[in-house]
């Protein structure tokens, strides 16, 4: 599903070269539930940007679902993000002036789906996260947990093989966080590959595999029993 070989990412900050990723090898198979953990500055966000096709590596090879994703143009990256990956962010990242339904529909607009089909799928996705009665609410009318569920519905609606969560429970109270984690577990049970980025070991323990990263290198990779 995701194959990363000897990946490097260098940033130039003023006169300093920052090695955000320093030779990462990582293989994630289908149906896995992986948590990538590490302190801030460890390179886990950079790794997530790579897996999410938001950035390209300086060196190394990277395959996603069979496609070579290490040397893509901006538009090709956009296409992969649209079709292969569903993003769930810490800050929800919903568009405030759009309703839940319109937010969920958006990835389908960019994939060129027709309106009727789009709406049906978006409503289904919202119902699957338990927000069937909130489709016409705007984000400001929803609680944090509900907003994150809208974001999950948006990530699910294109039926992507990979769901990528960047600290998805970081802004939520513990009860909502539990609910969101439960949704991720259910999705994984249904066959989605889930990758979570977190610094919270308690969250990470709920995954099936934990990858610990430090100074741009993987220092631990273990299955959770």
């Amino acid at each position: 599903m995701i194959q990363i070989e000897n990946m490097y990412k260098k940033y130039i900050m003023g006169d300093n070269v920052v090695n955000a990723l320093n030779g990462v090898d990582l293989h994630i198979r289908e149906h896995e539930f992986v948590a990538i953990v590490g302190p801030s500055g460890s390179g886990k966000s950079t790794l997530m940007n790579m897996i999410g096709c938001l950035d390209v590596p300086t060196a190394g090879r990277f395959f996603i679902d069979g496609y070579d994703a290490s040397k893509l143009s901006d538009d090709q990256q956009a296409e992969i993000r649209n079709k292969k990956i569903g993003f769930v962010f810490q800050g929800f990242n919903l568009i405030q002036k759009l309703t839940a339904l319109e937010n969920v529909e958006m990835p389908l607009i960019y994939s060129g789906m027709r309106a009727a089909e789009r709406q049906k799928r978006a409503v289904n996705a919202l119902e699957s996260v338990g927000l069937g009665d909130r489709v016409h609410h705007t984000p400001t009318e929803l609680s944090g947990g509900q907003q994150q569920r809208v974001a999950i519905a948006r990530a699910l609606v294109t039926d992507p093989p990979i769901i990528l969560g960047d600290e998805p429970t970081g802004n939520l109270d513990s009860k909502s966080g539990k609910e969101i984690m439960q949704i991720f577990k259910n999705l994984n049970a249904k066959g989605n590959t889930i990758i979570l980025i977190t610094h919270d070991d308690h969250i990470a323990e709920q995954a099936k595999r934990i990858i610990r990263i430090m100074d741009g290198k993987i220092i631990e990779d273990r299955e959770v029993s």
Partner: protein
Amino acid sequence: MGLLQAYKMAIKSIRSNKVRSFLTMLGVIIGVMSVITAVAFAEGTTKQITDQLSSLGTNLINVYITGRGSNRQVTYEQLKEFGDKNSEVISAIAPEMSINSATTKYGTNVRDTRIIGTTSDYEKTKVRGAQSGRYLMEIDNDNRQRVAVIGTAVVNDIFDGNNPIGESIKIDGNVFKVVGVLAEIADGSDSSDDDQIVIPVSVAQRMSQNSQINNYAILATDSESVDAAMIVLEEFLTKIYGDSNSFRLMNAAQMLDTLGSVTGTLMLLLGGIAGISLVVGGIGIMNIMLVSVTERTREIGIRKAIGAKKRNILTQFLIEALMVTGIGGTIGLMLGCGVIFSIGRMGIVPSVYSFKWMTLSFGISLLVGVIFGIFPANKAANLNPIQALRHE
């Protein structure tokens, strides 16, 4: 993503920021409105003057004797002789002696109308004959016949539309025989060229107890001869009066030329000023769009993260700019037409709705949208999604 989607997004964005959108449009609204109003004003004025001038005939030279500073006087006979000598450039000379308001009576019906004393040549210079009966003849002048060719406005009024030929009328107490009806040229309306009576100039001189003829209508043989005819006329009259201040020569074609260049410059000037206001409006749009891109950086980041391509973002912002200018242009057109209509109604200048200029100004406003929208739209499309998502 289709254009329809981009259009829907644009509508949504414009509606979610009504006041700002309106203020952005204002520049375009004022620009388009001023373009079409200014042009309509210029074209209306031009049309008004052109119509008046053209109705005079373009081969026609009008001579006005002012007689200022001179005791000498040119006579009809002298002019006639001059015309015969210069027949290669002058084909007809008709005196024009007007009595502006004379009481015309038929039975008990009375009407005040304009009397023109002239000769048979007036038919040629005015390119206007009799639509029934006959026109003046040379013999009428020679014998001081009291005959009259009357306009249709007069026929409709004092003859109640009945055939007037052969009837007798009284003009300022003198009995005239109606021999013809002037060809109708102004729908028979009051105070128009249909509201007049043509009589022999010799009779008019006697009636007004004044032999002095101050106006002549002189016809050049063709449009090429107009300038030559004016030159010889000027020479001839200068010789008689001793200077060129005692008379004036006027030709419609020359005046049309002058008018054309003046109104052309006027239109350019007005159009230019209005065009500048459109450009200023465009800069306003660019300004607001740039603010909007910065404000919506996070939204753009989200859109890109979930799969929007550069092209999608570019289209979205460009369509938004186009919509703003399009709506602004439409409002401007409507307001402009309203102003043109009102000016027409007030009778200041006839309403001229120039389709060409309306399309042009609307087109320019859309163009302004594209030109000034492309920079902000491009900026939005090229945002880095990672940085855009981090933007607060």
